[in-house]
């Protein structure tokens, strides 16, 4: 439990310290910045619209592939712990599991779903 307590403490103390430093930043000028000073920078000309938009994530097929592989990680961690005790059978099992998943990558790559531009 000591390790868990230290981890939580480090996380929150660092976060608090950074937030405190940021808010302790001194205000150089009393006046608020002007509207032209707040224009997002793209080289000196103002935009027509807000930048926030229905952003076209071009890599959406890749992100779906990632979801499946993230799931795979869940299986691999416990496997790593018991691997040596279980012996060859564990190696073969994981080999088959991963080869099956590699077919997924192969398919995606072959379908050119990883490209987007």
């Amino acid at each position, binding site marked *: 439990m000591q390790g868990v307590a230290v981890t939580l403490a480090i996380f929150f103390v660092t976060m608090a310290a950074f937030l405190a430093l940021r808010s302790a930043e001194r205000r150089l000028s009393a006046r608020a910045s002007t509207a032209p000073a707040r224009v997002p920078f793209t*080289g*000196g*000309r103002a*935009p027509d*619209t807000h930048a926030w938009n229905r952003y*076209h994530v071009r890599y959406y097929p890749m992100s779906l592939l990632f979801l499946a592989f993230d799931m795979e990680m869940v299986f691999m961690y416990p496997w790593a712990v018991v691997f040596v005790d279980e012996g060859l059978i564990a190696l073969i099992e994981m080999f088959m599991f991963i080869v099956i998943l590699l077919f997924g990558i192969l398919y995606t790559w072959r379908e050119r779903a990883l490209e987007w*531009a």
Partner: protein
Amino acid sequence: MTSTLARLASGAPSRCFALAGAGAGDVGPWLRLDPSVAIVDSPRAADVLLVLGRLEGEMLHAAAAVHDAIPPPRGVVVWSPDGWSSRRWPFVDAVTVRDASEIAPACRRLRDDLFRRRLASSPDALPDLDPAPWRGVGPFGQGGAGMTGGVPYGRPLAGRADDRDGLRLDQILVRVGPFLPPFPPGLLLDVRLQGDVIQEATIPAPIADDAGASGREGPSGAPVPHGHPARLAVAADSPFTTALTRPVPIAELELARARHHLAWLAEALRVSGLEAYGLRALKLAFGLDLESAESIDALDRWLRRNVSLRWGTNRVGVVTRAQAEGLPGGPVARASGDDRDARSLDPAYQRLGFEPVVRGGGDALARWRLRVAEARQSVQLAKRSRTSESTPSGVIEDPRGPLSDDVPPSAGLVALLPALLVGMEWGDAVTTVVSLDIGVIDPAVREVTSEGTGP
């Protein structure tokens, strides 16, 4: 506390956001060699707005916007060799220097004075007006209407557009330039993006001088002059401009060409994330002499071995042979297999056994390699040429392409951009633009009405 910080800060380089105007020449790249100045990419990271050369029209208004984007305390340094009046809107409290060697100390002094509060921060140049009235408008007082209507916080939301993958999502218009660092200064480009892919790129039409003057006023009410950035008057001190009318030693021309290509290489390396190595190219450029061929060879070997550079430029921004033949000539065309070079027609060059450097492929990689090879060839030509001089014929091969009285070397490249950039991811688009080496503020784009620079 503040004074302690200011004392500490005086050891840091002064961070400048540089605006290169007409007549800036290669002072911008040259300043990068000075360790007491750091040229930054965003006005948010700058202490000093550094104006190099002369700005007019639309550029001046954009300069005012950039000036206001710099967080206080901020100051302005103007370097203007031809005595362009600097203390005018929007640089009312600018420090003016005439000598290029004075720029870095002036920036440093100004920065220290600002931090020690000996000088006040430069006041805002543009009036504090919302882009559209929104305060208190609408049911929530944020200027919006319904889910997507109105002007929340002063601007409308983006609209949808078709896309090649069948998803109808939002398209935003990004007005690039004139001062977005990886792009050539002065280049205006309206880019329509969906995600990070360019769907449409257009070169905005110049604003007519007599139209739209209302609403574009300096704080004093003085109207801001308008004009297209490409119509800027330039001090004609480039050897290539001179060579149009009278003979110039080939050694001088060729060393200037090699210097231009190496300075370009430094900038291209910087955009690729290799700023430190780029400084080597820059140092070589500004210390160039007749014996530099071996140093260029060493640079070339390093570039060839660098797999990562090849990965980022190979098959990016391909200019086809047909497109290249539509260009007036120049390194971009030669990198696509077109062997036109104005030097081939010059008897003085013919006597030196000149053969144009040509590459196939037409991609950014080919253009990189072509320029390095040309820089090397130029140094060798300069060494061989001894005292021979160029023959004025009305056309001269500028480092960017053939230069004559009425055709600027980069005009064809700007026209090529819209077709070239469509469908590209943003990073590839920037690589392409950088690899084309467009000079919007070309020596040849001399204002028609300006006197003294023409033949």
